[in-house]
């Protein structure tokens, strides 16, 4: 089992080919809930990234000591501890953001991305590979969140990260920053990406 993908492969896979949101459909709760603005979305991506990196490194360090049936307990304990640290850190140094994200920070504990990466990569491969995997997945997650957040914030308020971008005459589509906007934007983007893929593979099929 030690021979898995190399660190570079893991890193690249996380960003697009195995994007946690668009390809694996993981962590959707956070994806939909915090993308009403670019700032909360990026804070969430960094928070998830920190927890993922720490958990992956720790699990990878102790991977030879793990007993199969206690594995999940160890994963959960580690993840919950790091999420608590992130939550308190945000509360202390980014109070307004922590208030805005509310329960979605503790909900990182049940974000399937992290437990999935611990299971698939960290509990089997070396620390370096696990870290590369975590960084790759985080970038992938961050890109996915950003793609949704940019569309929602821009159309919903005419702003990006709180700065007015569209002319003030833009009639803000309030629905985009409300819950339905999250479902619609993500659903359409997901369909679009599937379509682009299908077109690409059809072209390749014709050539090959």
């Amino acid at each position, binding site marked *: 089992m030690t021979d898995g993908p190399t660190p570079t492969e893991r890193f690249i896979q996380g960003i697009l080919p195995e994007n946690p949101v668009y390809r694996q*459909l993981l962590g*959707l*709760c956070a994806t*939909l*809930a915090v993308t009403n603005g670019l700032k909360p979305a990026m804070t969430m991506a960094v928070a998830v990234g920190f927890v993922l990196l720490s958990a992956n490194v720790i699990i990878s360090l102790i991977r030879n000591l793990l007993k199969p049936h206690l594995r999940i307990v160890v994963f*959960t*304990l580690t993840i*919950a*501890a790091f*999420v*608590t640290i992130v*939550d*308190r850190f945000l509360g202390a140094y980014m109070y307004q953001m922590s208030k805005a994200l509310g*329960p979605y920070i*503790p*909900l990182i*504990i*049940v974000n*399937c991305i992290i*437990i999935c990466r611990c299971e698939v990569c960290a509990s089997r491969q070396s620390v370096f590979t696990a870290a590369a995997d975590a960084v790759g997945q985080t970038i992938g997650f961050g890109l996915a969140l950003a793609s949704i957040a940019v569309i929602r914030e821009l159309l919903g308020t005419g702003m990006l990260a709180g700065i007015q971008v569209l002319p003030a005459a833009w009639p803000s589509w309030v*629905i985009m920053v*409300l*819950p*339905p*906007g*999250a*479902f*619609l934007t*993500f*659903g*359409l983007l*997901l*369909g*679009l990406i*599937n*379509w682009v*893929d*299908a077109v690409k593979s059809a072209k390749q099929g014709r050539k090959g």
Partner: protein
Amino acid sequence: MGYLVDIFLIAVGAALINNFVLYYFVGICPFIGVSRRVDMALGMGGAVTFVISIAAFLSWTLTTLVLMPGAPVTRWVAGFFMSADRAATVDLTILTYIVYIFVIASSVQFVEMYVRKFYPQLYKSFGVFLPLITTNCAILFACLVIMSHVVGVDNPAEAWGLGKSLVLGFFGGVGFTIAIVIMAGIREDLDLCDIPESFKGAAITLIIGGILAMAFMGFTGVDSGLRVALGGTP
């Protein structure tokens, strides 16, 4: 009377107005994954409602008795090690997330074993979904909402008791069931529709979810009206 109105409004709020799935986005994974057939959706909804009620009970009990600052059990235990004044300030809230997730995981395990042993019929209808819902955000979310109404509330008269917490948990589960069953009903009919290839599966489910969320937005504000209708102050 006031208490009953509060309970009623919490129930309506959790099930319809601020629906767990369509307003708070928790429990999206099963909402997309297990909403292909109505009977499966009902089973999943039943399992979630069941576990969420148990988790609500346990998290409220543990938070008030052990975790919050000045909780009786903690004060009593700490009293053996330090002066009574200092024992009253012991604050274990930093452990809440860890405690909640383990409470959820272990109650799911116990419920599964119990139901499988004593109610094989019930197990057949929703037991298979039980292991899946440990990582269902809806359950942890209910625990967190209860925590926010128990810990650090300015007005002790407004802190939630066990009754309100149980109502929130149970009706949060009911709201989840409503959303997932509606979605399953739509998706059963969707099989007969001509959907673009790339939108099949998750994408179309999300778009329908968006339309459902829009419909559920119609419930916003109903609670203030209900409160006035039931004789309370707005």
